[in-house]
């Protein structure tokens, strides 16, 4: 088990190093000179060169990459060009905001998606199954801003029940914040429902067709007991994996949802940084997204192995 963990972590770290190289060099491809964009088009050429030197962007690329990545490892993410202040606190508060929104979406979607998938599987081939599957598929591919607009029009404009902006006034209580986050969570729930329901459905169908479920049924257990004790426990394994891998998509969705609902999260931060060519902010933000995704997939892999004895022995052999 320890060997498996080490191997899995090693792979994740290699992938992250690759990702950091890609992000850094992709950042260099973006046109525009950092000093020029800070100082404006009217600044003297000598001032631009002096600032370039001060920012360190006139050094060789490999040197720049090395000082960037070692800085990152020490928690020093550099200075944002746009805000003229350290990247780290800005990124931290944005990450906390996004985490709140993502957590709310996950709390709603996980039980809902699993329920949808299990109900579809128990009615496999019937109309209920087709409706759940097609609804999930369509909801997953409707862009977040489209479903976001529909819920804003219904709940904010027409019914006037919930605010159309996600940003609660500073110092609001937990429940006020929750009220502001309800509408933005809906588009994320829409997108994820299809994926989670599909995995839960596939897992449940597989479990239903298995020998142990047949045995349980034949020895006279009631259907409800069979489903709760034998089917669900086994069908949820693949679902855990998909929840983790969807974290990446969730963050992509946050870019759009946070823009639509005017919310200061990491998606919005990355988007603004890309528009303003704020490289330190952009690179730190994108790398953070990569790290979050990697951590989520490693946790999912480990959880799946821990929960499934068969995989556990395969791994140790």
């Amino acid at each position, binding site marked *: 088990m320890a060997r498996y963990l080490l191997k899995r972590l090693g792979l994740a770290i290699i992938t992250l190093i690759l990702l950091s190289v890609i992000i850094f060099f992709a950042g260099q491809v*973006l046109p525009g000179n950092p000093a020029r964009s800070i100082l404006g088009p009217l600044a003297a050429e000598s001032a631009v060169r002096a600032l370039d030197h001060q920012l360190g962007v006139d050094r060789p690329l490999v040197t720049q990459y090395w000082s960037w990545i070692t800085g990152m490892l020490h928690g020093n993410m550099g200075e944002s060009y746009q805000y003229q202040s350290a990247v780290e606190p800005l990124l931290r508060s944005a990450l906390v905001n996004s985490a709140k929104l993502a957590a709310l979406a996950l709390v709603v979607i996980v039980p809902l998606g699993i329920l949808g998938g299990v109900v579809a599987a128990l009615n496999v081939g019937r109309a209920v199954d087709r409706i759940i599957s097609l609804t999930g598929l369509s909801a997953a591919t409707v862009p977040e*801003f489209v479903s976001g*607009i529909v819920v804003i*029009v219904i709940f904010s404009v027409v019914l006037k029940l919930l605010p159309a902006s996600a940003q609660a006034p500073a110092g609001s209580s937990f429940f006020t914040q929750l009220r502001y986050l309800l509408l933005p969570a809906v588009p994320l729930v829409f997108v994820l429902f299809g994926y989670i329901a599909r995995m839960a459905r596939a897992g449940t169908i597989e479990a239903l067709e298995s020998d142990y479920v047949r045995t349980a049924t034949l020895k006279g257990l009631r259907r409800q007991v069979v489903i709760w004790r034998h089917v669900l426990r086994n069908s949820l394994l693949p679902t855990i994996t998909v929840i983790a891998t969807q974290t*990446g998509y969730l963050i*992509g969705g946050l*870019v759009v949802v946070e823009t639509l609902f005017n919310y200061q999260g990491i998606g919005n931060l990355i988007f603004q940084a890309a528009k303003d060519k704020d490289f330190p902010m952009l690179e730190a933000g994108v790398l953070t997204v990569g790290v979050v995704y990697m951590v989520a997939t490693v946790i999912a892999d480990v959880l799946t192995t821990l929960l499934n004895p068969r995989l556990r022995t395969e791994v140790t052999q």
Partner: protein
Amino acid sequence: MSEIVAMPPGIVVSEAEQREQPAWRLLLRRPAFVIGAAILLFWVVCAIFGTDFAPHNPLAQNLFAGNKPPSGAHWFGTDQLGRDMFSRVIAGSRSILIIAPLATLLATVLGTALGLALGYLGGVVDTLVSRIVEAVLALPAIIIIFLFVVALGVSTLNEILIIGFIFTPLIARTVRSAVQVERQLDYVPAARLLGERRSRMMFVEVLPNVMPTVLVEFTVRLGYAIFAVATLAFLGFGVQLSTPNWGTDISANYVLLGAGYWWETLFPALAIATLIIAINLLADSVEQVLAG
């Protein structure tokens, strides 16, 4: 007794019948496919001829009739500049229906070639490329796409190339695993024993057998491409043609939702939703027919 004897031939005949029918006839029997195709056809016609049959000129401004709610004269109301929203929705599908299919086609061609090569050749290259693909996939596709659009600028060609290249590894991954399955089948070593060259093996022997996978992948990716193009336009990277653009209209008007001018945003949003759902109905039917 006669009943028991009569049953099996009946089943056999229906199975044989299914197998002999060409795929497109099986597709036409599916209501989901027919509905999806009808909606898609409607938007394609609108993209080509929309400006001809829209009730108003979608670009004509009337500053005295801005932000008017839906009425008999303007079914979907008017925007801030007094332009007729119904006409703008009718004519607004063009850029999305040019960019998304071409980008998907590019990704399918490149991805299939790459997947064939990786799956068939295997080895060090396969391992290395798979690592890089996984690193890139650790980022949400939409973030990578808009980073490149910011870097290279907004244009029809750029968006086709960027979305096409980003989707290439995704398609390659699927094709690669299909090819690996095919490699295990007897006809591959048989053909090799006959002395066929590698390139001929890949394109003449293996490719036709993974075509169903490729076709399914194309229709599924088309949905995602439309998603990506619409999202880019919403984020302010919409391609400006001489016709309106749903995503760009939403991007320009969604801030007015708070003021109650919902029609300027809702109708283009619903148009995007119908197009995407249509593509998904098509993709789901193609998958069911080819995989089943």
